[in-house]
């Protein structure tokens, strides 16, 4: 089963005629993902490396029945691209683009919530269900099918963890990179819920970072709703506390958001946390 994505998911790539879009569209297809085409406004009716191209998501969806999209367009156009996918009723919108203005991201999240799309990202590596399909840029050579669910705020760090898991013989059900931006729709809680409900996922790895309160919210959720074992890692212990967030920021943030407070909160609800990534596989055995 896995979560969010499997071999039946029909994926389009927005920005498919760009360098990154095309490169990763091919990688996705090579892995077995059903990439049914792509969208680049103004290039509709053409074809590129075997991918059909449409001018708009609505037209691509009408023609192919796509239910997922992977967005590679530049930050300046990301809002319009994401809106387009959401408006066309695409169920799973994976927004790889980084550097999107905060206001634009908030608008995208709001529209996705309103129209019922699941939005992964922005500024994320996407997701992969090993052995079935991937959307995004997670390398395929470091994953293998199995029963560990992985959810992560960090991109490259995830790859390190995936490889260590695979090397230790711990395959993955699905790995979701939720992305590093502060505003998002799909956060730890949403993915933990899916992993908890997924019969193929037995244990969960959660890779967090300093800042914000996503890990704290995850801890609350785990306490109430997650019965599967969770192993956690928080990056950023070295980081210095911020100085630029203004009085309102400081008052709202309070003492929260540091690595230590996150680790403490997670431990308090039964999550085993590690100091070094290399300790993760052992805790899952």
């Amino acid at each position, binding site marked *: 089963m896995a979560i969010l994505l499997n071999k039946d998911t029909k994926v389009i790539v927005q920005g498919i005629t760009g360098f990154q879009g095309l490169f990763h569209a091919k990688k996705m297809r090579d892995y077995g993902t059903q990439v049914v085409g792509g969208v680049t406004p103004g290039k509709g009716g053409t074809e590129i490396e075997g991918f059909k191209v449409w001018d708009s998501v609505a037209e691509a969806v009408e023609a192919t029945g796509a239910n997922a999209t992977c967005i590679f367009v530049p930050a300046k156009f990301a809002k319009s691209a994401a809106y387009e996918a959401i408006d066309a009723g695409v169920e799973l919108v994976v927004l790889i683009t980084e550097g999107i203005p905060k206001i634009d991201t908030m608008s995208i999240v709001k529209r996705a919530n309103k129209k019922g799309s699941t939005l992964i990202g922005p500024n994320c590596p996407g997701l992969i269900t090993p052995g079935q399909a991937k959307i995004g840029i997670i390398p395929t050579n470091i994953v293998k099918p199995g029963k560990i669910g992985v959810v992560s705020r960090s991109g490259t760090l995830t790859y390190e963890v995936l490889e260590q898991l695979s090397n230790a013989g711990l395959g993955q059900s699905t790995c979701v990179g939720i992305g590093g931006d502060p505003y998002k729709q799909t956060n730890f809680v949403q993915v933990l819920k899916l992993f908890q409900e997924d019969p193929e996922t037995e244990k969960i790895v959660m890779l967090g970072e300093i800042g914000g309160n996503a890990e704290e919210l995850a801890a609350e959720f785990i306490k109430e709703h997650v019965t599967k074992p969770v192993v956690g890692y928080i990056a950023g212990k070295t980081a210095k*506390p911020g100085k630029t967030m203004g009085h309102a920021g400081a008052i709202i943030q309070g003492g929260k958001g540091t690595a230590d407070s996150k680790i403490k909160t997670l431990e308090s609800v039964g999550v085993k946390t590690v100091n070094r990534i290399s300790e993760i596989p052992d805790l899952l055995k």
Partner: protein
Amino acid sequence: MKKKGNFKGTRNIAHSLQIGRAIIMGLILEYEGKEFLFKKYRIPMLEYRLVRSREEAEKAIDELGAPVAVKAQILSGGRGKMGLVKFSRTKEEALANYDEITSREFDGRPINLVVIEAGADIKQEVFVSMVFDNTGNIVVLFSAEGGVEIEKLAEEEPEKISRFVVPFDDEIYPYMFAAGVGKQGFTGKVKMKIATIIATLVKMMVKEDLQLAEINPLIITNSNDVVAIDSRIGIDEDAMFRHPEREEWLSAELRDTPAEKDAHEHGLAYVDLGGDIGMLSCGAGMGMATADLIEYYGGEPRNFLDVGGGASPEKVENALRVMVSEGGLKSILINAFGGITRLDDVAKGIIEAKKKYNIDIPMVIRLNGTNQEEGVALLKEAGMEAYLSMEDSVEKAVKLAKGEN
């Protein structure tokens, strides 16, 4: 500031090392907030001049007439406490304060931008500050007790702070803040003037892509005018493409150290961390984890330097150039996990940089993943070795920095 539009970079996470990902922003100068934002939105202010020399300062003081305030333009709050904002009753006092302030440094730079501001007729100082929360709301704090001890007030007498939560995409009107301002003891015209300024700031947050908007103090004069004395504004650097003029602002220069600036111009993320182990990572999360591991083994990273995923040899080479340009390194750690990144490219960059910049600081290299064999072979040819495990490489780099072997 680096060009935007590449879809997978690393700048944000560098900032996140300093301030946590929740609030990522670039502060601007008090002067810029007033000149480029408050003026445009007609927020009432006192007269002021930006001066860059003693002559300009004297002219400004003459034009405005004593008393004046002499205010250092630096990218930080708390200037009053630091003695970088000084009220001056006479011209002589003002010039003396100017001399004193410009003799000082902040953040490793001389202070040479100063604002001279007309004196105020202050009946009361109030405070307003706003940021976004993580759910798409603007959170506004307002208190009738302005000044610098706001965090303390929030803790000890929270009822003295009115809090408003406004969805980012709502239309904003002064009425939305009237009752809350009223609760802090204001009524009639003064209340509505304050509510109007708050509404204006909230609108600015969205229209101007701000991440922080604060006025502290906002003053009420004896003739019941409400006037902004300070401006503390943080901008969303990801929205620079909508505000290209901001690339030319003075704060854009001040925000980064020379090494940071150099790094950003080459698409690298660089943060000075103050230790002695030069650290280069391919990917930002990896960078954070590597820095943590350095501390875990008892070392101190000199910097956070990230070339991102899929870096070219040139990028790696530039990163090493930036790293060594800062000095004070006892060892260098290069942690490359090859997912998208090709490790032969990383190896090429390292070899080239070592040659070009005569780097003789002990270097520990970890290569694992895509094109690992090719990378290791290239290093070997150049007389270097590579670790496979992250832990081992970090441990080694820490030992080297401590002079062990």
